């Protein structure tokens, strides 16, 4: 039993990503979409906390949203994986529930 969490807000603008990570359990997945993809960026004040949570939780970004915002996947924190919409659907199917952090 595990949860797919989705986050669609920039972590520089709102607390949604941090709150999500504080409630995610080992084995859960966090998919960053829309403005949420900025959460995957390396070299920011958030990188350390993301590295820490990444040990227990699988971290994903929605690649089309990353590309729209002009961010090269090379900028992503190590361990953050890009998926397309089909991959999003697979993550929804694979986990027992989806929880949106709006």
């Amino acid at each position, binding site marked *: 039993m595990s949860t797919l969490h989705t986050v669609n807000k920039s972590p520089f603008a709102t*607390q949604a990503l941090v709150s999500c990570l*504080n*409630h995610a359990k080992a084995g859960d997945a966090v998919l960053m979409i829309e403005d949420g993809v900025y959460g995957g960026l390396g070299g920011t004040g958030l990188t350390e906390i993301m590295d820490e949570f990444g040990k227990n939780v699988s971290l994903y970004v929605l690649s089309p949203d990353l590309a729209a915002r002009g961010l090269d996947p090379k900028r992503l924190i190590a361990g953050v994986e890009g998926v397309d919409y089909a991959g999003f659907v697979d993550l929804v199917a694979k986990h027992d529930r989806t*929880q*949106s*952090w*709006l």
Partner: protein
Amino acid sequence: MSDVKKFLYLNRRAPYGTIYALESLEVVLIGAAFEQDVSLAFVDDGVFQLTKGQNTDGIGMKNFSPTFRALGDYDVQKLFVERESLEERGLSEDDLIEVVYEDEDDDWEEKPAIRVISRAEMADVMADADVVLSF
């Protein structure tokens, strides 16, 4: 899977600044008729929805705080409030309204529906849900 699903209503936003708190409550009231296992979670700014003494006379909006107190009559028995979210906002359980329900398994005794729990326990509540509706 049994016929009854566990519905979790996740409330993370303050009241009045946006309509989400009010329209979430409208879903809960309608949903109560479906005889599912219903829980409400109040996390982050969502805990502000339950503060005592709300008075909206000065802003021209409807005060929907009393509707929370009526939830017990709709047999909604579980309002989980995160302790850390309260503390970060300088609030304690005393600042919250009372919501009670009558426990049919215990001679219809009135019991508090609001349960202040830790963040870790809140994570367990979330992980136990079949359907999470986020507002």
